[in-house]
């Protein structure tokens, strides 16, 4: 059993965006079995209607979403002149299975709180609105216009919306964004993790060197197997425990538990003195300097040469480019070409001279040089960051034994230069020299300390000298072992984090591919399913049979190409090269309508907001006729309900003509937003008149004036429509502020013409009242005052007379007819017949 689909049958609106209508909500009814049009000149609130539907159904107003936060978009939902600063949107939906109508009320208060209820008692009003969130429910010009984009990629992106696949397109792009390698490297710190792992590995290797050296110093034989480090630690404890002086400090303890400071104090006590302390310091100093020896100077020299070569290569690449200004020029030119703004590949976009070679290839070549230079700079930075030289440099500058003044240290500045890419060959030479100075200084110092150690050892008892050495190296063994284990632990933790990130990278890349392939297939299916339909609609709108468009989506890509499978007998031609904007508009709306017709979502209505304004007048007409005769329910049994919003004056003539027929329901909005009320004509002239009377009685002349104008326009246009008075072709698009005068002129001209021809149906009294009383009263008390911009207001009494005059004027076009014994007041059929 298929689910019920819903028509939109009523919208009432108060306090939202441009619609104030405090106490008298704008009330528009839509018929499910007719095309519904809503016309308003610019500034009357038509956009507010579309935005109200957007807000109610999609919980968004795109125009406000695009504002910056500092523009405080949240303050522009509710009408700024509504005293309660509160919006109420009431919607009524009628199911197409004969069920009861559902009413939904969406409210928003000044603080931005949204509340949804169902006055008709529907149990899940929020869920109902969610079910209406379909691409086909609302189409505004902004979305529509983007389909007309020139580039295949941009077209492909927006085309998804026309096929009802915008959510798929957005989600696929989202998945692509998060699976992008560069984004993952940055966002998930993958590069940083790799660098940190390498650093931890280097730290562990250095610690291991220290372990081996100190073990040999204590035990006299090398530590060859790194899997036996615990055994080596036990052997050291055992060796120390064998020394009588130390026994009480070592026996029964692990290496970690031994207090080496206590042992040293014990030795000092055994033989105190300054020379003992100095020997200890000298040994510590030597150990620190020996630790520096783990850095392989030959590797560092190779790295220095490599960096020199890389800097040379970078300099050569930079020299081949033409500087930053030209880079920006080439980038701009590439954008112009890629977006399809410039299509002459053998012509210069600047001077328009002809070129012997391709401009895009030239720009591509130039930009490649900049990219190569940037890549080389990056390579230099990465090489430096991962180099042994950097670690060595850091160790030499920071070791306390060399006592380098922090102000003279160069590492920080050097890092900055490598990171920014500013490192030069001169910088490199200076740093190599500084490195050599540090190494020389360390080498000299270790020699001096060695000499001093020999001298002190000669002066002190040999057994205790050796013991002091052993204790110090045992302590260093423990320190190196601790460091080694810590580095291993850090490396292991980092490796786990890297592994799972790479696992995610693999997963999300495959998942994005899975989604993309499925979306591409769905898009192709949709295009294939509507192929005949959109081509038929295109033909109906354009009224041509020998121009046939053909949509093709590229495999694996979002690009959408539009070809012409037939162009006046020629085949497979470029649509872009041949089709005017009007044709492209027709193609876009054909695709959208064909896709909408084949869709079976919950909404069975389509609201088109000013979509037709980009069409030529003739194509607007054929589009409307297509909707009216083929797409609208019930002409099309499976058809949709159309609600067309427009500010197009010429189109309104078409709406107005059809508005009194069964298949068309027309609403015209008039009023004075954003402060005053907006009312639809079908909302009831009587209500308008009552409001005018109330305002004038209270002396609120300026508030009543726009409503009087609205009332006059309504009544005069009603006369024109009812008795079929012809109007000039520019009637609807002439100055709308003079509409009352325009209407009176048209009525007066038609009456005079019929009178002179002896065909006027009006009786003598009506004719006389019209010419001598009512028209002069309205011209004198309204047209000549308000349509000439005199500025001041007339009195309430005069304006009350104007409303009386217009009612009396309308009566001049009616007659009494006896129907079944009752007298019925009816409009003349025309100026010459009943």
């Amino acid at each position: 059993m298929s689910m019920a689909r819903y028509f939109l049958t009523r919208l009432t609106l108060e306090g939202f965006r441009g619609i104030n209508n405090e106490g008298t909500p704008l009330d528009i009814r839509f018929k499910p079995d007719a095309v519904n049009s809503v016309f308003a000149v610019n500034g009357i609130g038509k956009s507010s209607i579309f935005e109200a539907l957007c807000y109610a159904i999609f919980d968004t107003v795109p125009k406000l979403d695009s504002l910056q936060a500092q523009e405080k978009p949240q303050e522009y939902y509710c009408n700024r002149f509504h005293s309660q600063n509160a919006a109420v949107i009431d919607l009524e939906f009628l199911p197409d299975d004969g069920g009861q109508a559902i009413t939904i009320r969406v409210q928003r208060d000044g603080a931005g709180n949204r509340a949804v209820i169902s006055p008709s008692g529907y149990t899940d009003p929020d869920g109902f609105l969610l079910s209406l969130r379909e691409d086909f429910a609302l189409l505004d010009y902004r979305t529509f216009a983007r389909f007309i984009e020139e580039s295949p990629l941009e077209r492909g992106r927006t085309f998804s919306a026309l096929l009802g696949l915008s959510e798929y397109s957005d989600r696929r792009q989202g998945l692509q964004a998060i699976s992008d390698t560069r984004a993952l490297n940055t966002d998930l710190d993958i590069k940083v993790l790799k660098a940190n792992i390498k650093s931890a590995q280097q730290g562990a290797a250095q610690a291991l060197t220290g372990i081996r050296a100190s073990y040999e110093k204590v035990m006299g034989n090398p530590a060859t197997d790194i899997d036996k480090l615990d055994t080596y630690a036990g052997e050291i404890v055992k060796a120390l425990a064998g020394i009588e002086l130390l026994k009480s400090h070592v026996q029964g303890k692990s290496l970690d538990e031994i207090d080496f400071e206590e042992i040293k104090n014990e030795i000092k006590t055994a033989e105190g003195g300054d020379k003992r302390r100095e020997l200890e310091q000298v040994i510590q100093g030597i150990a620190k300097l020996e630790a520096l020896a783990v850095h392989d100077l030959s590797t560092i020299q190779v790295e220095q040469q490599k960096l020199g070569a890389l800097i040379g290569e970078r300099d050569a690449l930079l020299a081949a480019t033409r500087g930053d200004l030209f880079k920006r020029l080439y980038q701009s030119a590439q954008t112009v070409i890629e977006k399809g703004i410039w299509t002459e590949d053998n012509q210069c976009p600047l001077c328009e001279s002809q070129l012997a070679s391709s401009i895009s290839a030239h720009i591509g070549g130039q930009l490649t040089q900049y990219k190569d230079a940037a890549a080389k700079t990056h390579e230099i930075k990465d090489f430096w960051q991962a180099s042994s030289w950097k670690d060595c440099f850091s160790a030499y500058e920071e070791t306390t034994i060399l006592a380098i003044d922090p102000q003279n240290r160069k590492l920080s500045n050097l890092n900055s230069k490598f990171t920014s890419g500013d490192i030069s060959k001169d910088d490199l030479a200076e740093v190599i020299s500084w490195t050599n100075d540090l190494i020389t200084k360390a080498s000299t110092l270790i020699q001096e300390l060695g000499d001093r150690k020999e001298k002190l050892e000669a002066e002190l008892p040999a057994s205790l000298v050796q013991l002091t050495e052993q204790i110090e190296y045992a302590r260093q063994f423990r320190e190196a072992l601790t460091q080694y284990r810590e580095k291993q632990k850090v490396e292991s933790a980092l490796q786990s984090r890297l592994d799972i990130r790479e696992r995610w990278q693999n997963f999300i890349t495959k998942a994005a591919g899975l989604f993309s392939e499925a979306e591409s297939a769905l898009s192709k299916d949709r295009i294939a399913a509507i192929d005949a339909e959109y081509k038929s609609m295109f033909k109906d709108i354009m009224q041509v049979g020998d121009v046939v468009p053909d949509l093709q989506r590229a495999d694996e890509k979002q690009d959408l190409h539009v070809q012409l499978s037939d162009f006046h007998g020629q085949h497979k031609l470029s649509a872009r090269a041949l089709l005017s904007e009007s044709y492209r508009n027709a193609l876009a709306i054909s695709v959208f309508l064909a896709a909408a017709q084949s869709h079976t979502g919950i909404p069975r209505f389509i609201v088109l907001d000013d979509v037709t304004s980009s069409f030529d007048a003739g194509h607007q007409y054929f589009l409307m006729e297509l909707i009216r005769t083929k797409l609208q329910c019930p002409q099309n049994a499976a058809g949709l309900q159309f609600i067309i919003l427009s500010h197009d004056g010429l189109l309104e003539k078409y709406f107005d003509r059809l508005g009194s027929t069964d298949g068309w329901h027309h609403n015209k909005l008039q009023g004075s937003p954003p402060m005053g009320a907006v009312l639809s004509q079908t909302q009831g002239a009587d209500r308008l008149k009552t409001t005018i009377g109330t305002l004038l009685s209270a002396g609120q002349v300026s508030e009543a004036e726009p409503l009087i104008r609205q009332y006059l326009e309504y009544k005069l246009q009603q006369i024109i429509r009812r008795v079929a008075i012809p109007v000039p072709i520019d009637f609807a698009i002439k100055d709308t502020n003079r509409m009352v005068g325009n209407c009176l002129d048209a009525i007066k001209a038609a009456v005079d013409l019929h009178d002179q021809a002896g065909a006027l149906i009006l009786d003598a009294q009506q004719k006389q009242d019209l010419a001598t009383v009512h028209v002069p009263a309205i011209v004198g008390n309204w047209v000549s005052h308000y349509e000439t911009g005199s500025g001041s207001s007339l009195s309430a009494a005069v304006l009350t007379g104007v409303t009386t005059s217009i009612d009396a004027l309308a009566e001049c076009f009616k007659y009494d007819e006896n129907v079944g014994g009752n007298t019925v007041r009816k409009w003349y059929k025309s100026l010459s017949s009943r």
Partner: protein
Amino acid sequence: MANFSFDGTKSFDENFEAFLDASKGIDEELANILRTNADALKQIVREGERDTNARVAFNTAIADALDTLIASSDPSGGE
């Protein structure tokens, strides 16, 4: 990884749900993380407009979830 396709008669939400299920065929644990963060994924591209901050926020949430996954699968309770 099995072949996967969207059902043209179903809503986007239903199809996205089916996609999340299908992604379990690639890696079930990570598919669960993707599902948990599906709402944040929505924010990255809306009406064709990319939001870099939303992408960074999504990946930050993923990184946290991945670290939590490591900790939960580490018998020592992780660091």
